[in-house]
């Protein structure tokens, strides 16, 4: 599935999904408008495994010229990511981790000035993270990373705190990291470091949520973050990540990173 919209700058630098005078009023007209847009700048793509025979549904509802709502049975709705133009949002299911047929996610994409787009958290994810203690703890951990020169394979104050954080707060910690990394609240270098250390946490309770975050981060706009995700998946060495690593290799535009990801894919495939 692929739809597109004009996201040119209007009204003092705030990007719009459609002109105010021509706002679609229902789902069908919004889809038509998307498909007819001349300057294709927004793409919504759904990725599912053909072999699973899973039928995905994506509903787009206009809320205002600056905001659309997406309801999908593909879970979860991942963070917005941009490759300059076109702006792109991907939705994907994670086989074996969440039964997609049983989950419905609703998120809103909201335009902001400076051509920045935000994807709101799915309500179910918000419910899981109502406790803000892990968020505050994570902020402190990120602060501790300032001034640290990260060296591959070398523990540091940040990594020690991060591993302890995930062990102490479990899935709530992973949810906080999920928000911080995918919403780009922390720098790509710190996010990348966090992803590789996340793979080293010895905690079966959080294994699935950590694997899911690593898979999602493969589609980050930052090559450093995508690399960290790929390295983390290599450390987990779980063949469950094969389809998503395969997809990431196909989508990767950075030639050198694509080659590195392809090596990770070969490693995972050799485990089957």
């Amino acid at each position, binding site marked *: 599935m692929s739809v597109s919209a004009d996201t040119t700058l209007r009204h003092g630098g705030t990007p719009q999904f459609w002109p105010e005078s021509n706002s679609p009023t229902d789902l069908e007209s919004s889809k038509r408008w998307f498909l007819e847009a001349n300057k294709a700048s927004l793409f919504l793509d759904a990725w599912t495994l053909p072999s699973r025979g899973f039928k995905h549904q994506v509903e787009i509802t206009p809320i205002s010229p600056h905001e659309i709502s997406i309801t999908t049975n593909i879970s979860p709705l991942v963070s917005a990511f941009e490759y300059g133009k076109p702006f792109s949002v991907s939705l994907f299911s994670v086989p074996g981790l969440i039964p997609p047929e049983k989950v419905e996610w609703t998120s809103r994409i909201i335009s902001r000035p400076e051509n920045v787009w935000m994807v709101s958290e799915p309500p179910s994810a918000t419910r899981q993270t109502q406790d803000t203690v892990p968020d505050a703890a994570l902020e402190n951990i990120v602060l501790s990373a300032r001034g640290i*020169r990260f060296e591959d*394979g070398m523990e540091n104050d940040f990594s020690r705190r991060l591993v302890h954080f995930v062990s102490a707060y479990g899935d709530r910690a992973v949810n906080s990291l999920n928000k911080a990394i995918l919403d780009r609240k922390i720098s790509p270098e710190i996010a990348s470091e966090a992803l*590789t250390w996340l793979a080293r946490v010895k905690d079966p309770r959080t294994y699935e949520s950590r694997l899911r975050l690593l898979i999602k981060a493969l589609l980050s706009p930052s*090559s*450093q973050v995508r*690399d960290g995700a790929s390295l983390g998946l290599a450390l987990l*060495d779980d063949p469950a990540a094969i389809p998503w690593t395969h997809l990431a290799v196909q989508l990767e535009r950075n030639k050198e990173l694509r080659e590195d990801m392809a090596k990770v894919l070969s490693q995972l495939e050799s485990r089957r």
Partner: protein
Amino acid sequence: MPLLIRKIKKRKWDKPEVSPGAADPPVPAEPVGDFCTDNNEISVWLIEEDKANLARVVTALSGAKTTNISHFDYAIFDSQIVLDLSLELKTTTGESPDDEANGKWHRDIVVGTADNLCALVKNIYNTCAKERVPATDIRSNLRKAIGSGQITAERLTDQLRKDLSV
């Protein structure tokens, strides 16, 4: 001409793709961060022209001061770059857990000034090959090196020994 290697963070060295015939893009500042000086010198390792010692040096470096098994990224470049910049390449003892490698192949490039450092990094950035050894290979190579006596397990950090189960 022998080659030299230096551990890097590979992603910081990615080059943007340029159209054929276009001028080389400017060298980003990030790679300079992988060339920390000690007493105005840069630590590098000499690799023979046929790369016969490459795997051994990489294994030795991957076990140096590390606490966990990890991938290993490095830049490999022609030692002629150092000569072209009229910089001194002196033999010094390395600090890896492989004593033979430390004595035979460790070198220091005497950069002296920030200008020389930037010129060196710029030339390396434009000409080097960047490689990544996966963590799975590092694990098996370290185990083999310990088994063959190239690396003494006691020279590794406690955490790394635990990670390697040795």
